[in-house]
């Protein structure tokens, strides 16, 4: 019983702010000037169309954010999968230690290196380009992906691969037909988490783009840095639009996301 009360408390505490925002985006607002406060407004979708007036390029930014996050997550997963496999199967005993080193790298805030990175990108003419943004986002999230995928791959018994090699399979065939299908759920879960991280990333696009390419988080920082105080219902609508794709993605794949494990890399091998 106390368990249910505690859970309900947690649900209210964590979801009330989101519910408040969702109501505002549909035009239902509290009126705090009256005592006691009351609710005003009627249900409307108008505020969603007002986003396009307050921020004329918002829908374009939504497309850019989606494309950049998809490309960056795909690139990271591909590269990290190969790298993590190399780590997990190296005879080099330090593989696990190196994987933990990648976790420390994953903890490194982007701010620590983004200042020289912006200068570097300017010099190689990748500032404010889609490719530059994708590469920088992919690099920023790669260490976490390596750590998680190394955990999944290290638990895999090498017998399957050895059998395939005896049958004359090359490296590509072993990876594509044996290893990948066995860890596909972990790879997919990692890709979803990376998509969320890339979609929400602010600092990388903020520093590496200047208008030509613009993502949703950068647009949101603009709402304020240029002192153009936005209407709350319009801002709420923009928040809901930027949250909705992630909410749907996570709700649909919540079972699969259990495969995003941080403990496999350090756990004892099973069997």
């Amino acid at each position, binding site marked *: 019983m106390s368990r249910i009360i505690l859970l309900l408390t947690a649900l209210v505490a964590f979801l009330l702010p989101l519910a*408040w925002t969702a109501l505002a985006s549909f035009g239902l607002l509290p009126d705090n000037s009256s005592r006691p406060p009351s609710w005003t407004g009627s249900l409307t979708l108008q505020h969603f169309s007002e986003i396009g007036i307050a921020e004329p390029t918002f829908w374009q930014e939504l497309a850019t954010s989606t494309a950049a996050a998809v490309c960056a997550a795909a690139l990271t997963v591909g590269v990290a999968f190969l790298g993590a496999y190399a780590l997990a199967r190296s005879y080099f005993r330090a593989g696990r230690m190196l994987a933990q080193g990648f976790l420390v790298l994953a903890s490194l*805030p982007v701010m620590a290196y983004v200042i020289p990175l912006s200068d570097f990108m300017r010099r190689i003419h990748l500032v404010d380009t889609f490719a530059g943004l994708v590469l920088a986002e992919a690099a920023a999230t790669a260490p976490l992906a390596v750590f998680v995928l190394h955990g999944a791959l290290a638990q895999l018994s090498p017998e399957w691969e050895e059998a395939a090699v005896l049958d004359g399979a090359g490296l590509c065939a072993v990876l594509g037909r044996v290893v990948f299908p066995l860890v596909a759920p972990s790879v997919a879960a990692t890709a979803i988490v990376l998509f969320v991280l890339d979609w929400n990333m602010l600092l990388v696009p903020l520093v590496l783009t200047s208008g030509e390419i613009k993502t949703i988080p950068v647009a949101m920082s603009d709402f304020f840095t240029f002192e153009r105080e936005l209407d709350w219902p319009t801002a709420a609508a923009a928040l809901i639009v930027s949250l909705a794709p992630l909410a749907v993605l996570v709700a649909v794949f919540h079972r699969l996301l259990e495969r995003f494990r941080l403990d496999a890399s350090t756990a004892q091998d099973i069997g």
Partner: protein
Amino acid sequence: MILFAPLALLLGAWLVLPAVLGLFATFTTYSPFTTTVRFSGLANYAAVVQDPQFGAAIRNVAVFTAVAVPLELAVGFGIAYLLRRPTRGRELCRVLLVMPWLVSPIAGGVMWHFLFGGATGILDFVFGWLGLPEVASPAGDLRLALPTAIAVEVWRVAPFVTFLLLPGLASIPNERWEEAKLAGASWTQQILHVAIPELRTLLLTVAMLLIGLSFGAFDTILVLTGGGPGTATLTPALFSYGRAFQTNDWPVGAASGWLIAVGVVAVGAVYLRLARGRPAT
């Protein structure tokens, strides 16, 4: 190994190389806006360390980390503990309780800016119901700004901790709990003697990520308070960003960025020692 090459290329070109070039640059007067570059030794670092704003930023981030990380771990663990057994409605709870983490840090800042604000916010609504006078946003109060920023961060990150801990907690064999219960262990003892030893390395890993996240605290605070009032919520990341991109004091910005990296690497060294420690039995 050839398989490692793409990863090495990606990380080398877009993370390690710029970072190392940046490190060398911090020992000179280099900036993208100057033409003459001279060696300047530790002058940039001296400028950072002597800057009272940076001192304030370090103090703030120390408080931020010391309060936010344990709270995130405790709340995140608590919710995961409540959800560890498969019961009716568990899946729904899990999905709903991960939602705050899906709100981007910047969107979280925007959202709480309005929720704390007067006319249409939650805070004023509750105060109104209680018959209390209107309140100003705590984000603008000198003493309350930092606790407010911490609260918003905990709201957003604790669900992420639950998300990371739950699979591990749910996979602890049921017998372990039963044994503890038969031995007469209370729920606190069950957590201390069953859950925490089983999840030791996982908890260490999550703590490492959270500490890194706190050291780099930037997005939410940028919109919520902008580092103010005064320097009440200034963090090293905001300091670096402001110096490098707003006041064009590039070398100082890059040098303070490197000091964030030093902090994370120092914590990382402790993590590597502890995680290697005793192997799980």
